[in-house]
């Protein structure tokens, strides 16, 4: 979908969740990037933003409050964002299992480039390469329908992360695919498509309908 303003993406997600709830649409995934934006979760952990809001404009970033889980994080260009709008009840998994699968999608993508990533230890959701975080997750589940999702660092400007305590975990660095691998990276579209393929494979979707505004998954071929 290219670069989408965070608030616009939020509104789109809300509409899609409502449509998915009434089964007007099948499981959908939004694949996009954001302009520099800091976002806070439901817990409103403002204290993890280390600069005052007035400074944000100077560095060209926005701040948004959301209803997703998780702490504060940064989204920006060159970061692959995936917002799956799927019905967990239809596939019969719970929140924990869903988050684990999101982590696995990112771990698989990283391994395509020879980066050995793993899920966090207890309480530290996300995807890590050693002590450095390469992927973040923040999800909202309403009536069994998911919104928000994951953010994978391909090559974002990591200096933005210095202004926050990312995900509320102090003294852990943030890294990106570019930093972790020496191999030549293809264009970001290719990487985002690969991420979607990993995601689709892990969740058992066999039929992917790609649309210019994102991709729609139809959920047959479940391997239950």
């Amino acid at each position, binding site marked *: 979908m290219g670069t989408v303003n965070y608030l616009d993406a939020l509104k789109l997600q809300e509409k899609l969740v409502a449509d998915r709830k009434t089964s007007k649409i099948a499981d959908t995934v939004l694949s996009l990037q954001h302009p520099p934006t800091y976002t806070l979760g439901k817990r409103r952990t403002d204290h993890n933003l280390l600069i005052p809001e007035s400074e944000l404009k100077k560095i060209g970033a926005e701040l948004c409050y959301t*209803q997703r889980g998780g702490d504060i994080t940064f989204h920006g260009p060159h970061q692959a964002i995936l917002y799956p709008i799927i019905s967990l009840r239809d596939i*019969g998994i*719970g929140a924990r299992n869903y988050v684990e699968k999101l982590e696995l999608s990112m771990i698989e993508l990283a391994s395509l480039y020879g980066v050995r990533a793993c899920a966090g230890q207890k309480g530290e959701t996300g995807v890590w390469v050693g002590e450095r975080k390469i992927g973040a997750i923040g999800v909202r589940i309403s009536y069994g329908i998911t919104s928000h999702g994951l953010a994978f660092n391909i090559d974002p400007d990591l200096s933005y992360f210095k202004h926050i305590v990312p995900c509320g975990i102090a003294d852990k660095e943030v890294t990106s695919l570019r930093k972790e691998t020496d191999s030549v990276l293809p264009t970001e579209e290719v990487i985002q498509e690969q991420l979607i393929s990993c995601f689709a494979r892990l969740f058992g979707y066999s039929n992917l309908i790609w649309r210019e505004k994102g991709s729609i998954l139809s959920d047959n071929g479940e391997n239950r």
Partner: protein
Amino acid sequence: MASRLLWASRAASYLRISVFHRGFASVVKDLKYLDSHEWVKVEGNSATVGITDHAQDHLGDVVYVELPEVGAPVSHGSSFGAVESVKATSDINSPISGKVVEVNEELNSSPGLINSSPYDKGWIIKVEVSNSGELNSLMDADKSHLSLFIHSNSELAATPSSGMSSYDIHLLLTVAYRCFIALMVIMYIEVLALGSMLVVNYFIGLHVW
């Protein structure tokens, strides 16, 4: 699968066995359930609401609970708050309509109570019921247990496992064990009776020997 469960649990209830489902979601009787895994316990006009053991297991460790204001209205099937775990916030829906009269403030400091004690200390809100007819549309323990079993069984099936689920095996083993014990007791009594009969015979029929 379902028919096997029914047979086993009917046998269990006939023999008055209570089975402890270790490592399996427990369902408490006297509660009513919403299909999104919230329970409600009604006492007179007041109802207590929480989420089931099954739900808390699927969520993972709860780190935050968003509670409604006291006095706020709730309606059947609509969300009144949320729980957060593993970076996912999940809505909690109310099984009944009414007005919130009390919220569990403990959950602000100890959200983990939902995981450790989902039916007792992990209660979420207390509601003054406005429409008691709604309770009839909720599931009770047996139905919800069955749907939970089928639901969780589909997950068990996703991981490589033997034909029967561990719940089935556990239940059948318990039934078999109890039958065996009963048989042993009967045989013991028989032997005792026979023995004492012989002794009595010996004494009264002393002249026979």
